[in-house]
């Protein structure tokens, strides 16, 4: 079945440093979505990427979808304490919807 690998599992950064999480699927995806889950909360939608090579920006967040539509990344520039949480990618294949295991981001003030 479809597998979605996400790395790193944990990332500790100093406030102001950059952060990147990577997602890789075993199968070609129709789209990929990114969610953020704060401690004790539920996943909240950030963005959806559909097109090969697509790049989208939301303020300090940059999302990329690979040319082969099998990998994706989320980059945060100049992290802030409000960025703390776990970031998940969700790969949508032909039949399956699969969450990555997530990257837990800690920001040291």
């Amino acid at each position, binding site marked *: *079945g479809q597998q979605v690998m*996400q790395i790193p599992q944990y990332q500790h950064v100093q406030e102001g440093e950059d952060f990147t999480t990577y997602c890789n699927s075993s199968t070609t995806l*129709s*789209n990929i*979505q990114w*969610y953020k889950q704060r401690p004790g909360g*539920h*996943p*909240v*939608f950030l963005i*959806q990427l*559909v097109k090969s090579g697509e790049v989208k920006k939301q303020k300090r967040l940059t999302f990329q979808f690979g040319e082969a539509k099998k990998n994706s990344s989320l980059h945060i520039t100049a992290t802030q304490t409000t960025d703390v949480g776990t970031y*998940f990618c*969700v790969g*949508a294949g032909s*039949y*399956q*919807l*699969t*969450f*990555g*295991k*997530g990257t837990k981001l800690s920001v040291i003030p």
Partner: protein
Amino acid sequence: EAGVAQSPRYKIIEKRQSVAFWCNPISGHATLYWYQQILGQGPKLLIQFQNNGVVDDSQLPKDRFSAERLKGVDSTLKIQPAKLEDSAVYLCASSSRGKMSEQYFGPGTRLTVT
């Protein structure tokens, strides 16, 4: 616009007992998902409904888990009998256009099986 509602928020049961969770999706959302999220892991899709039909239940342990979506609106997820490894947060989500649109998640039900 009201969000996805779930109840109860917390439940503690003993192993071999039964439990049921309820979800009310956002009005008009045709697609409803149930996920299991074990502590420290990503959500695992258990079942996906499109209106009141099942689209994907490939990861639902059908010997003990069951789910239904009455009239294409509310949904219930049942576990009978529960095992210790079922301790997790059960998340319900809904979307307007299946996997092509964002999912809105409810607050979840935290289940502890002792």
